[in-house]
């Protein structure tokens, strides 16, 4: 905040408190839900997509880069976790650390992609995710990754514990977004997104800013992927690298509205909620409706649900 007046500071504090309480309500709510609703896996998927949509928010909402291959980090996390647990017989928490490292390493390797703009970046990141998948799923690497035959991690299977770790990851991600929304760093990122040339002239390090956002975003996906592997314990590479995961997260984010805290949350609760209620019974009709919804959204509400309010000048947390 450039303004250092006491009033501005008080305003900032109020904002941070509001944002943080929203985050807290969501996390606690999802914790409580596990006690009252027994389809734990469905709740777990909600937690996963809440975190993924916000992770994507970090890179897209604040820098304007939309990686279609976001699932690559998720898959890298899932396999980082699995490899350490399978080969080193490490504990699940060590596995989670490995998941984080795997996603970050991949993010560093893919840093050059940030030189590309818009659609090229989106497509290249998708190709990158596919490439990682092709490597992981290759039967020639069966001894390492189990190739296409899938991973089984029954030794560390702990659905309750891993659910709470997933909640912790969600909390971490939400706090990251709160921080980005209210910090000088987050503001400068948005300045870069809107006009990289002037932002650079104003002394904001464009490259550094984007790199940090990219790594944070990858980290979130990696952690979510790791906890997914842990929670589900048996999976195939095409589960961990399912392009639909990217696409769902993207649609949720855009539907709610990027750069905000509430937008992606709304997107997940509404769309994934509908998906689970209606989609299960009549998937094809739902797939059609879903597709139509996306089309209408892009044409008539490209900045998401929250833009109904922000267009009227109302600040949405």
């Amino acid at each position, binding site marked *: 905040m450039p303004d250092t007046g006491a009033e501005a500071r008080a305003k900032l504090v109020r904002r941070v408190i509001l944002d943080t309480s929203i985050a807290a309500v969501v996390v*606690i709510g999802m914790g*409580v839900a596990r*006690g*009252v609703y*027994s*389809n*734990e*896996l*469905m709740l777990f*998927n909600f937690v996963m997509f809440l975190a993924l949509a916000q992770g994507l928010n970090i890179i897209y909402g604040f820098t304007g880069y939309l990686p279609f291959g976001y699932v690559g980090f998720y898959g890298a996390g899932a396999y980082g976790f699995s490899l350490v647990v399978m080969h080193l017989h490490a504990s699940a928490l060590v596995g989670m650390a490995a998941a984080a490292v795997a996603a970050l390493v991949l993010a560093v390797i893919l840093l050059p992609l940030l030189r590309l703009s818009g659609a090229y970046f989106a497509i290249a990141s998708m190709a990158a995710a596919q490439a990682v998948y*092709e490597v992981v*799923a*290759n*039967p*020639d690497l069966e001894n390492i990754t189990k*190739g*296409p*035959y*899938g991973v*089984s991690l*029954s030794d560390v*299977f702990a*659905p309750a514990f891993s659910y709470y770790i997933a909640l912790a990851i969600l909390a971490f991600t939400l706090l990251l977004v709160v921080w980005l929304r209210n910090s000088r760093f987050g503001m400068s990122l948005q300045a870069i997104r809107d006009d990289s040339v002037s932002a650079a002239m104003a002394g904001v390090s464009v490259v550094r800013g984007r790199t940090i956002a990219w790594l944070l975003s990858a980290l979130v996906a990696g952690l979510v992927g790791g906890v997914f592997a842990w929670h*589900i*314990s*048996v*999976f*195939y590479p*095409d*589960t961990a690298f*399912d392009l*639909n*995961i990217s696409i769902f997260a993207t649609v949720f984010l855009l539907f709610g509205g990027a750069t905000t805290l509430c937008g992606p949350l709304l997107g997940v609760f509404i769309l994934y909620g509908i998906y*689970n209620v209606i989609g*299960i*019974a009549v*998937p*094809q009709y739902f*797939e059609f409706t879903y597709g139509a919804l996306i089309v209408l959204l892009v044409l008539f509400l490209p900045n998401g649900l929250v833009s109904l309010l922000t267009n009227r000048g109302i600040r949405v947390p």
Partner: protein
Amino acid sequence: MKSKALALGLLCAVAAAGSANAQPAAPAAITIGTLYASSGPYASISMPVFDAFKLWVDQTNAAGGVEVKAFGKKIPIKLVAYDDQSSTATAATLYNQLITQDHVDLLVADSGSVLTSVGVPIAKEHKQFLFDVSGTGAAFFTKDNPYIALMSDPVSTIWPHYISDFLADQGVKEGVKTVAILYSTNDFTGTQAAALKGFFERDGKVKIVYYQGVPTTTSNYTVLINNIAALNPDAVLELGYVGNDIAFLRNLQDSGEKFRFVFSIYAGTEKEEIEKNVGISAMNGIYSYVPASDYEYKPDVGMDQKAFHAAWDKKYPPGSGVAFGANAIYGYMTGLVVQQTLATTKSLDQMAIHDAVFGLSGKLKTLDGTFELRDDGAQIGEVTPLGQLQPEGKDKLKLVAVYPPDLANGKAIIGK
């Protein structure tokens, strides 16, 4: 707020436990939960299973329900089925849904290893017995998990041994010395390829000159066929899914290359589907497994193959979408196992169901052969003879079982 929710949760748990403990009177219906994939890569193996299972349910309900020994009477079946659209993530949620929300009495998996895989740990976690229709993944069957049994389809490592036996036995006599193996890199075909490689190396009679995996999404084989032809193998084994086999057989015909022995899994197991897509001339002489849809076992229970095929055609007229084939048999077969299980189980407790299913092992004879389980739940009874597609009349092909000799109903013709 939190404590309130906790209390609510506790209440629910107590209620659930209470209802489980009190042995209720006969329920109004036996709930069977299952998944199917109406779209995506596994739809073509999932839909026939599901349709056949539905056929069994309808038939049973039309007869007044299924006989349940624990209550000494017939009870109608309520089928709860969800569409996972070939997505494992969706499937996982849905297995959970069936167990925790719908509280199904019996849980039947989706077809194929991939969609079954996610159900295995969930069923085990919730101590729910899983009727595994055709998920043959070796990792599913472990001694410490009593909550699974494979209905049909022997485990992948057993399936292919008639191929190597046949080549080592009759093939060698006719001068077959070399073999090329081309497989799709997925659990189902990959394990079969690896098993075959092991068998050939163990027997040491036929030499493997080409052993390659290709991605399951491979849709054209022209160059691969050219490359294989360059090595001049006597036998070519192509192990893939339906789409792979269609592309392979079409390209093989187009290439004009001839091999003395060509094997493809689905040419026989989903004969009608393949025939629709590649035509008869491309299939003539091809070797394949002989599924129960083309082989007449004498059943003690349920319809025989002819009667079932007729019932299928009546319910799903040819051309209505889903073709008759091995997977249809698997679905019906699963229904029969369920039926026999309920007819013998002491209660609907999941361990009692486990006991009842394993109690059928070795005794149950259906249109799919003899149902026999290894003690970890893997299927070892239902064998699939090696067969060959041979001309029958002018424009028809018949799948003739040629090996092993005790199951054979025809003679193999090995090309020159």
